[in-house]
């Protein structure tokens, strides 16, 4: 990959990543992550 193209791809991906992150938070996904992460659903971690 040539230098310029690579840098462009990197910047584009960074921006895409940030945008997706914000969109996900706006959608309420972060709340889902938190609610699942503080309660131990036993089967989900392979107990039982």
């Amino acid at each position, binding site marked *: 990959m040539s230098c310029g193209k690579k840098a462009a791809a990197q910047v584009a991906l960074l921006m895409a990543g940030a945008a997706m992150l914000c969109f996900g938070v706006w959608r309420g996904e972060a709340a889902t992550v938190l*609610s699942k992460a503080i*309660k131990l*659903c*036993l089967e*989900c971690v392979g107990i*039982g």
Partner: protein
Amino acid sequence: MNMKRIFALAFAVLMVLALAACGAKDNDKQADMSGDGSAMTGEPKTAEEALTLHKELLERENALLSENAELWEKVFMEADKGMAMIEDGKNYGDFLLDTIEGAKDQFTDEEYEMLKESATEISNIENKLTELEEKYPEIMQESIDGAMSVPAGSDTSTPPDDGSMQKFPAFEGKDLDGNTVKSDELFSGNAVTVVNFWFTTCNPCVGELSELDALNKELAEKGGSLIGINTFTLDGDETAISEAKDVLAKKGATYQNVYFDSDGEAGKFTTNIFAYPTTYVVDRNGNIVGDPIVGAITEKKQAETLQKLIEQALAADVG
């Protein structure tokens, strides 16, 4: 060599920070918890166990007081003799705390901290002692009569925070259709009540809902009932309630689901539960029968334990 030392030092600092920061935070939680009692571990099942516990706690309290006798002397001197020692809701430990506060300038910072710590522990011990005495009034007699034998290796390092909480915490809340539900009415109206804790996004919890409904119908014939508590719905979160009702409807579960405030006694009890699904068996007097059942009751082991506890509660009810 220099870098290595820097790294090692940074690492050590990090470790101390982790233990200190979390230790302090969680120690406060511990102090609160031992008041409500943790739901996870076992409780003294028999009067003898309770008696031993009672003795151990008294020993600990005495040990605390004799450890720094002169400091405590000063505290007692400051105690306001006119003040009623046991006010509403307070116990000996709290009384000590107040006195220490009042006499703060008599002590150095170190002494003050240490006294406060001990007094807080005494307060917790007193709470537990009262609970035990309420549950097993016979130990009051026996502790006075019986010889005070020193329990071998009394475990003062891990104070028995194994939930002497035998009573299911009282609550007053609503069910998902808006009807008021009071815990004392609920429990006293049933020979046995099975309480199932779940939450909407927990797969095994949702998976067992239909079985629980069948169990509810079965229990109804024997004079018992089953209720569910969805921890997302606490504090009456509207969205959570409608989602919960949705899921219940899809699984064909018609039994009552209740919610209450998260800052009440029952609310705190619920926040201490972190493994789901968890099921409790409660008898007519509102006492928890046996240990909580952790894991879906669709599994053989859990189903067997559940049946056993239900039988136990029903048998005790008749007797």
